[in-house]
C-alpha cells in the first residue's frame, strides 16, 4: 500500500442516531420502485405497461439517448403503477413484488475469461450498468468510453454513514469477482481507497487486481471525487468511472449465477428512529412498513441517503437507486425569537461565532431548519475550509451562476460533483443552494459538449 493521503479541509458533523451494527431483516417490501429522477440527465423510455409481469432483471425502461443503458426491475412481480408528474414526466415505476423472486437468466462465468465487450454487454443487458457512474458530470457512464481508471471508495465519511466494512464482511469472493469484471474495462485499473483511520475489512485489504490507496481526514475524505482529485485528477476530455462497494458485489453476483441480485444492506438511522440499525433489504425498497414500525412520533424529515446529499422522500416513499442509507431527522420549523443572536447550544456550526466549537465531541440532533435566509455572497474563506480540492469553490459557483462555460472548465468543473459541495452548502452563511447550482452547471456543460 502506498503512502497515506492526508486531507485537512472538511468537517465531521456528529449526529445522534447512528445505526447499531446489527443486521436485521427488513419487513418484506410489498413494492419496489425505480425513480428516473435518481439519474441526472436521463430521459427514460418505458418498455413495460401497468399490469405486465416482470422478472428480477427485466428491463423497465431504458435511456432514450443511449438505448444500451437499461434499467431493470429489482424483483419479479407485476408492474403496479407508473407515477407521472407535470408534463407526464415519469416519477416512479412501481413493481408489486412476488413472494419468491424469479430471475431473468443472464450470462455467467469467470470474468477473467471474458472480453471487455462481453462484460459490458452483460452488465448493460442485466440492468447493472447504471451502477457505474462517471466523472465528469456525475452521470451514468457511457459504455462506449475508455475510462482512464475506475475508482471505488471503500468507506463513506458522511454523517451517520453506513459502514461498508460491516456490510461487505465475509463476501470477499463475490466482491473479487466484481472487481475482476471491472478491471477488464479500464486500462488504468481499479483503484480502491480505504480510510487510514481504522483498519479496513479484509474484503478491501486483500482485494486482488486493484490498486489500494489510503486517505485520512474529515468528511468528505470518503467522497470518491476527493480521492480521484488527489490520486488521478480528471482533465478535460478524460473520463473516470466510479462505483459503490455494494454495487460491485451485485456485479460479482451476476457473473457468479447470471442473476440480477438487487439485495442491499441498508443502514436505517437518525435521531427520529426507535432503534437505528442495518437491514437486509432490496434496491428501491418501499420505506412504508419499515418506517411505520420504526419512526418516532412527530413531524419527521425522511431522507433517502445521508443528511448532506440525500433526497427528501415521504414516509411511504422508496429508497433511491444509489442509496443504501435511510435517515430520519426531525423536520423542525419553529420560528425562534432572536435566534440569530442567542447562543444556540443545540445547533451545529463550523463557525466560532457559535459555541459549538467548544464541544467538538458533542452529538447533535439537528432538524432540517435553514437557520437563516438566503443572501448574496458576503463571507469569504468559508467554503475553502470544507472543500479539499485545489479548486476555488466560490469562483466556480459564480462562473456557473453566470453560465460562463469556458471559465467553468478553467476553474475545474470536470472534477467535481454536487456531493463534493454538500458541506459548502451546509456551512454557507448566505444559504446559497450550492449543490443544485453545481448540478445545473454540469448539465449545461454536458449539453454544450454533446
Amino acid at each position, binding site marked *: 500500500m502506498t503512502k497515506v493521503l492526508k486531507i485537512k479541509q472538511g468537517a465531521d458533523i456528529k449526529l445522534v442516531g447512528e445505526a447499531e451494527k446489527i443486521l436485521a431483516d427488513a419487513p418484506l417490501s410489498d413494492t419496489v420502485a425505480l425513480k428516473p429522477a435518481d439519474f441526472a440527465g436521463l430521459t427514460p423510455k418505458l418498455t413495460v405497461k401497468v399490469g405486465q409481469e416482470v422478472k428480477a432483471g427485466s428491463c423497465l425502461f431504458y435511456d432514450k439517448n443511449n438505448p444500451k443503458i437499461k434499467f431493470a426491475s429489482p424483483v419479479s412481480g407485476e408492474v403496479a403503477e407508473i407515477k407521472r408528474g407535470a408534463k407526464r414526466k415519469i416519477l416512479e415505476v412501481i413493481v408489486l413484488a412476488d413472494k419468491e423472486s424469479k430471475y431473468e437468466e443472464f450470462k455467467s462465468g469467470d470474468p477473467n475469461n471474458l472480453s471487455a465487450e462481453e462484460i459490458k454487454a452483460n452488465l448493460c443487458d442485466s440492468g447493472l450498468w447504471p451502477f457505474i457512474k462517471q466523472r465528469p458530470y456525475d452521470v451514468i457512464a457511457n459504455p462506449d468510453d475508455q475510462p482512464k481508471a475506475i475508482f471505488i471508495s471503500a468507506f463513506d465519511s458522511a454523517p451517520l454513514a453506513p459502514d461498508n466494512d460491516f456490510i461487505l464482511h465475509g463476501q470477499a469472493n463475490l466482491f473479487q469477482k466484481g472487481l475482476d469484471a471491472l478491471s477488464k474495462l479500464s486500462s488504468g485499473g481499479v483503484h480502491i481507497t480505504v480510510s487510514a483511520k481504522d483498519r479496513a475489512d479484509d474484503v478491501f485489504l486483500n482485494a486482488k487486481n486493484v490498486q489500494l490507496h489510503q486517505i485520512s481526514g474529515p468528511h468528505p475524505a470518503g467522497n470518491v471525487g476527493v480521492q480521484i482529485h488527489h490520486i488521478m485528477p480528471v482533465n478535460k476530455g478524460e473520463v473516470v468511472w466510479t462505483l459503490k462497494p455494494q454495487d460491485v458485489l451485485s456485479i460479482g453476483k451476476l457473473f457468479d449465477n447470471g442473476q440480477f441480485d438487487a439485495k442491499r444492506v441498508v443502514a436505517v438511522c437518525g435521531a427520529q428512529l426507535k432503534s437505528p440499525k442495518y437491514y437486509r433489504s432490496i434496491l428501491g425498497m418501499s420505506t412504508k412498513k419499515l418506517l411505520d414500525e420504526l419512526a418516532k412520533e412527530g413531524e419527521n424529515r425522511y431522507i433517502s441517503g445521508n443528511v448532506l446529499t440525500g433526497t427528501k422522500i415521504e414516509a411511504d416513499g422508496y429508497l433511491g437507486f444509489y442509496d443504501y442509507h435511510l*435517515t430520519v431527522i426531525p423536520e423542525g420549523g419553529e420560528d425562534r425569537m432572536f435566534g440569530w443572536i442567542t447562543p444556540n447550544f443545540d445547533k*451545529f456550526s463550523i463557525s*466560532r461565532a457559535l459555541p459549538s466549537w467548544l464541544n467538538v465531541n458533542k452529538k447533535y440532533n439537528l432538524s432540517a431548519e*435553514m437557520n437563516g435566509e438566503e*443572501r448574496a455572497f458576503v463571507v469569504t*474563506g468559508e467554503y475553502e475550509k470544507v472543500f479539499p480540492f485545489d479548486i476555488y469553490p466560490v469562483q466556480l459557483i459564480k462562473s456557473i451562476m453566470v453560465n460562463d462555460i469556458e471559465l467553468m472548465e478553467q476553474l475545474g468543473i470536470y472534477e467535481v460533483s454536487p456531493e463534493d459541495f454538500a458541506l459548502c452548502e451546509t456551512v454557507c452563511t448566505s444559504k446559497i443552494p450550492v449543490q443544485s447550482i453545481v448540478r445545473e452547471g454540469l448539465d449545461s456543460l454536458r449539453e454544450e459538449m454533446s
Partner: protein
Amino acid sequence: MSNPIHNLLEKVKPNFEKGGKFEKLYPVYDGFATFLFVPGHTSHSGSHIRDAIDLKRTMIMVVFAMVPALLFGIWNTGYQHFLAMGETVGFWDEVLYGALKVLPIVTVSYAVGLGVEFIFCIIKKHQINEGFLVSGMLIPLCLPVEIPLWMVAVATIFAVVIGKEVFGGTGMNILNVALTARAFLFFAYPTWMSGDKVWIGDGANVALQHADGFTGATLLSQATEKSSGFVNVAGATYDDSFMAAFIGMIPGSIGETSAVAILLGALILIATGIGSWKIMLSGLAGGYFMGLLFNLWGANEFMLVPAHEQLVFGGFMFGIVFMATDPVTASQTPTGKYIYGFLIGFLAIMIRVFNPAYPEGVMLAILFMNVMAPLIDHYVIQANINRRKKRLATAAA
C-alpha cells in the same frame, strides 16, 4: 408558539402580504419579523442540515467587536474636552459629555442608513439585507465628533445609494460603504475632515479660551512638523507618545484613537473567525515595513516618526481591523488576502507621509485596494487555472 409578539406579527402579517393594505411595505414587515424571529424555514433542496450561522449573526459579531472602540470613544470625547478646558471632572461626567456628543451621530447614521435601505427594498421588492448593521456603526466611529449631524446624514445617504445600492446591494458593492461615506465628507467638506482640525468636543470654543499654547491638533497633523515631542490638547508634552496613542487618550475620530480598544475588537473578530487575520496581520506588516523604509530614508520630520508609532497614530489600526477586512470589498482568495492587506498597510503610510494634506492615508489606501482587489484575485486564480492547464498538457504528452 404562543409568544405574544409572535402572535401579533402573525396577526398583522396579512396586511403586508399580496392583496393586503400595506402590500408594498412587505420588505419592512419581513425585516422586522426576521429580526425578532429567525424564521423556521426548512431546507427544500440540497443539504438537509444547515449550519446555525447566518448573515445576521455574522454582522452582529462585527458590531460587538466595535463596541470597545465605541465605548472608549465616548469616554475619550469627554476626557479630551475637559482636558482642553483645563477642568478636572469625574469619570462619569466625561462619559456623559461624550455620550451626548457621540450617540446622536450613531443614531443619525443608523436611522438614515436603514431608512434608505428600506426604501430600496420596497422599490426593488427584495428582502432587507444586514450589511448596514455594520456600516451604520462604522460610519460614526470614523468621523470627528464635531461633525454636524446633517453632514452625517448626507454622507450616509451618499454611501448607501452610490456606494452600495446602485451596485445591487449588500454583497455586490465594490467600495467599503463606511469609507465611501467618509471619503465623501473628506472631499465635499475638507475643512471639517482634513485631519488638522481640532477633533474634540467644542474645539473652537475651547481654542478661544486657551489661546496660549493650545493646539488640539491630532498627533498625525503634528507629525508633519516633528517626529517627537507631541503635545496633548492642553499643550503638555506626552511622556510616551506611543503609549498615549496605544491606549488612545489622544484627539482623533470617535472610534479610531485607542489601539487597545481596536485590538480587543480584532481579538473578537479573529476568535470568531469573522474577520480575516490574514488581512490584519499583513496590513500591520505592510505599514510597519513602509514606516521602516521611511525611517531609513529620513528626508523630513514625518519620515522620522518611528515605524511602530505610525501604526498607532490616526485611523490606521481602525482601518486595518474593521474596514480592510470587509469580506465583500477585500480580496477573496487566501493568497490574495495577504497581498491585499500588505499593500493597504504599505500605501496607507506612504500616502500619509508623502502627502500631509491627506494624513488619513489609510482611507485612501483601502479604497484604492478595494478597486484593486478583483485584479489581485484574478492573478491568484489565474495561477490555479494555469496549474490545471499544465496538468492537462502533461497528461496529453
